[in-house]
């Protein structure tokens, strides 16, 4: 027995001495950059502050608070560590008008040109056993917390030797009468031992072991040390696979703000949760946890820790928990982060080393995207009435920087399961068409006005079978200009062009834009028999949205170590993968897709006057409904379909487009208005025939951009002042118009 006690003593001291909690990497969203001119309304700014757990006050008395005075919002910013800078607590005054931020000043009244809010903690990368925590130092713990813990859990903590015999006997008596373990009577030290060293199985021998170990701990360590260990160790909630340990993380998990900023009612609620994180879960059992919080407050007043009137005031406050748990909000995004980092880090580095990971996630865009997908899928489900629920996934980027700002992996956004954005390999369908036409434009033999034949195709394949593709409508359209073939997504015309420029060339274009695997070079490739994930589709279209420059899409910007050393940066990289002239011509045709082609349905949802470019995609038998498109500042790719690969019965325009349009409408985005490269010219052609027309000559014309030396046949009877070159035509018109001004 003595040997056993000695063994436990050694075990406890050794393990506790060298105790180091494994620290899951913390993952942060992109910080919001504030500057005069930023389109952010006062309400939106307040929303951002509240998302960061800032509390509105009148006093502005400590970091983490703000006050509103008319159009001015004063913020007491917390100290913060960015990947590239550490900033102390600072005051900021923002004047926000209806059109956006008007001025930023610091505490001394000096103009501040640009300032970042702190990045939102969006989750952590915790190990398989699921233990997640944020470790706090004693300085970060509000004094009320240890006092409340002692008052409620262990009144003799400061004087006992690890166990409280009276409380234990009382518990034993209760348990003997009930013939089972019902009451704890454990000291904080015993609870710590239980959590730190032992399983939670309750037996009498385990109780004895626990008591011996608690006494050993108490003999070797100070009460302050033990209290700090308790605060960082104890289990306080469950979120799927993730176990919330320690008050530091619990504070973020329940209130979305640092532990140091909790007020009396919030501290009391966390102390209430200690007794049964599932039974007293404030999100699921609000009434029950509220009753226990109020009991904690009452005990605190009785013990003289707080004044009775403060306790009753705190008891009148709502629970104040955030609607969704902080961290692990965004499983699909975190999934991408994890995969990015796995190339450079072992799992253990991520789950144990306390790294800080800075990402490009835009929480506002992410939430918009989640809502748009959820709402539209529910609407489609109601319309289509199938037993299986529709699924969807999407990716949003800022094309020029290649930042991935939002990822949704399925309609159940909180579910950390199959991530369709990264893992659903689906036929890209007509999303391939822009790359076929880009290849054609690059060949120099095609432009937007080139008339191509939409005619029946019958190809004898190597295996002896015949391939006879059809248009979506099963009709044949005859001669059509390229701009129309793309806008209306005509299969036969596109296959004709693709065969003419050659499968290897088209495959090469796809790979230049970032397709990871070489596509199988069969004619069906021209109708999108190429499997891509939504993320890969976003990579492909990102190059079209940024003028023919490829940037590897990235979620992670930087990784820093627990002690603040920069470990890894993911810098912006670009490479030119297509001629800017060809991409511009194509992009202008993708604008026409939205104006008059398969994307026109978005008009009703998008803000008036917003110029966007895009392409619908429908794979064979309607199994996949895609939409990929971009504005001047954002790209979004949406996939909708069934996990079982059953046909959906609708096209990209009917399924994915509404989701896409709602996402774009919800973002604060700008028009696509890339400058037209030199050597190109804008002219008008008749949409059905591709013949050059002057305004007034046709009631169905479209503006296209072609090489300046392109010769486009004019519509008979349509007179042009110079009878020739479209560039001079436009110049002449401008000149006439200028002369008109003079009169």
């Amino acid at each position, binding site marked *: 027995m003595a040997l056993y006690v000695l063994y436990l003593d050694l075990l406890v001291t050794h393990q506790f001495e060298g105790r180091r909690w494994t620290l899951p990497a913390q993952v942060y969203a992109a910080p919001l950059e504030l500057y005069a001119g*930023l389109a952010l309304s006062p309400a939106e700014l307040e929303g951002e502050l509240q998302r960061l757990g800032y509390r509105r006050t009148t006093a502005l008395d400590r970091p983490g608070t703000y006050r509103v005075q008319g159009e001015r919002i004063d913020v007491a910013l917390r100290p913060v560590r960015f*990947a590239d800078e550490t900033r102390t607590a600072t005051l900021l005054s923002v004047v926000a008008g209806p059109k956006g931020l008007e001025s930023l000043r610091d505490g001394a009244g000096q103009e501040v040109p640009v300032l970042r809010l702190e990045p939102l903690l969006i989750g952590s990368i915790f190990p398989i056993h699921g233990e997640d925590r944020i470790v706090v130092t004693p300085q970060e713990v509000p004094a009320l917390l240890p006092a409340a813990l002692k008052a409620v859990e262990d009144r003799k903590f400061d004087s006992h030797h690890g166990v409280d015999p009276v409380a234990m006997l009382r518990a034993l008596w209760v348990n003997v009468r009930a013939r089972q373990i019902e009451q704890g009577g454990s000291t904080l030290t015993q609870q710590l031992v239980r959590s730190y060293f032992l399983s939670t199985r309750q037996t009498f021998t385990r109780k004895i072991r626990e008591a011996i170990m608690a006494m050993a701990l108490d003999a070797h360590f100070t009460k302050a040390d033990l209290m700090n260990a308790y605060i960082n160790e104890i289990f306080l909630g469950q979120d799927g696979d993730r176990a919330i340990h320690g008050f530091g993380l619990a504070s973020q998990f329940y209130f979305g703000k640092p532990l140091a900023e909790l007020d009396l009612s919030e501290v009391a609620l966390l102390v209430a949760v200690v007794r049964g994180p599932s039974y007293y879960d404030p999100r699921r059992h609000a009434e029950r946890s509220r009753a226990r919080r109020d009991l904690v407050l009452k005990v605190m007043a009785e013990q003289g820790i707080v004044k009775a009137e403060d306790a009753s005031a705190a008891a009148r406050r709502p629970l104040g928990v955030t609607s969704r748990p902080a961290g692990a909000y965004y499983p699909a995004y975190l999934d991408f982060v994890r995969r990015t980092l796995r190339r450079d880090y072992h799992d253990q580095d991520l789950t144990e080393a306390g790294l800080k990971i800075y990402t490009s996630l835009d929480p506002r865009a992410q939430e918009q995207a989640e809502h748009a997908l959820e709402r539209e899928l529910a609407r489609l489900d109601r319309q289509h009435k199938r037993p299986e629920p529709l699924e969807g996934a999407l990716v949003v980027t*800022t094309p020029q920087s290649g930042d991935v700002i939002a990822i949704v992996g399925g309609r159940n956004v909180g579910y950390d399961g199959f991530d369709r954005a990264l893992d659903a390999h689906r036929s890209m369908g007509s999303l391939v068409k822009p790359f076929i036409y880009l290849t054609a434009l690059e060949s120099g033999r095609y432009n937007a006005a080139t008339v191509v034949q939409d005619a029946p195709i019958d190809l004898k394949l190597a295996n002896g079978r015949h391939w006879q593709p059809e248009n979506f409508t099963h009709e044949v359209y005859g001669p059509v200009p390229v701009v129309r073939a793309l806008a209306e997504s005509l299969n036969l015309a596109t296959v004709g062009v693709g065969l003419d420029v050659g499968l290897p060339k088209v495959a090469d274009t796809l790979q230049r834009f970032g397709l990871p695997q070489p596509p199988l070079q069969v004619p069906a490739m021209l109708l999108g028999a190429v499997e891509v994930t939504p993320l890969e589709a976003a990579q492909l279209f990102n190059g079209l949205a940024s*003028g023919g420059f490829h940037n590897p899409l990235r979620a992670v910007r930087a990784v820093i170590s627990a002690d603040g050393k920069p470990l890894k940066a993911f810098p*912006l990289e670009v*490479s030119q993968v297509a001629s800017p002239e060809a991409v511009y011509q194509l992009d202008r045709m993708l604008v026409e897709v939205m104006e008059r082609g398969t994307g026109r349905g978005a008009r009703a949802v998008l803000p008036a006057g917003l110029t966007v470019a895009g392409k619908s995609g429908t794979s064979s038998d309607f199994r996949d409904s895609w939409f990929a498109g971009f504005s001047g500042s954002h790209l979004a790719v949406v996939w909708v379909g069934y996990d079982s690969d059953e046909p959906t019965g609708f096209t990209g325009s009917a399924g994915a487009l509404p989701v896409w349009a709602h996402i774009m409408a919800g973002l604060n985005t700008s028009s696509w208005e890339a400058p037209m*490269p*030199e050597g190109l010219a804008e002219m008008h052609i008749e949409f059905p025939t591709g013949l050059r027309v002057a305004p007034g000559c046709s009631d169905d014309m479209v503006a296209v951009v072609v090489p300046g030396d392109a010769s486009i046949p004019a519509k008979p009877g349509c007179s042009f002042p110079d009878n020739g070159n479209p560039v001079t035509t436009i110049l002449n018109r*401008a000149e006439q118009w200028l002369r008109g001004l003079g009169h």
Partner: protein
Amino acid sequence: MISSMRISRSSSAVVSAWLIAACLSGCVVSRPEPTLPPGAPLPGETPPGETPPGSTQPAPGPGEAQPPPSERPPAQGPRQFRLGPAATALVTQAHAQAGSGEFGQAAVTLERALRIEPDNPLLWIELGRVRLGEGNAAQADAMGRKAVALATGDPSAQAAGWRLIADSLRARGRDPEAADAEQRAGTLSPH
């Protein structure tokens, strides 16, 4: 983290050349605003979200006072890129960082600016200069080309892009191509 060790003699020369150029681009930034024709929107009146702050101003000219009816506003025509106040502050900070050899930090700072004004070629040129300074001539070249594409209509910004391309080619010993690029810059905007 920063590959400043790899700076070769020739690229240090490039860096000092850039620090001179930095002053020049500072001059671009502080150039007075062109007077706008009556009726044209004032910079402050541009609806937020429609145009990135301070990206371009159409040069004054009667032809741009109002677009002709039923025509898109001309995408082309002389333009002059400038930096907005936020980007200017970040560029100043990046110059200080690059000046003390912290190229990685300077690049991070310039990326912040680029997120605010992603279409501004002047920022891509700045970032390309930093990449060149840390010895990454290939990225400098690509960013120069990106800048040239974005700078359509602004000969002086295009020339600055071509000069960056020329320097990045020279850093890789591709002197004949560098001379071509230099010549293009010279045609657009003589020194």
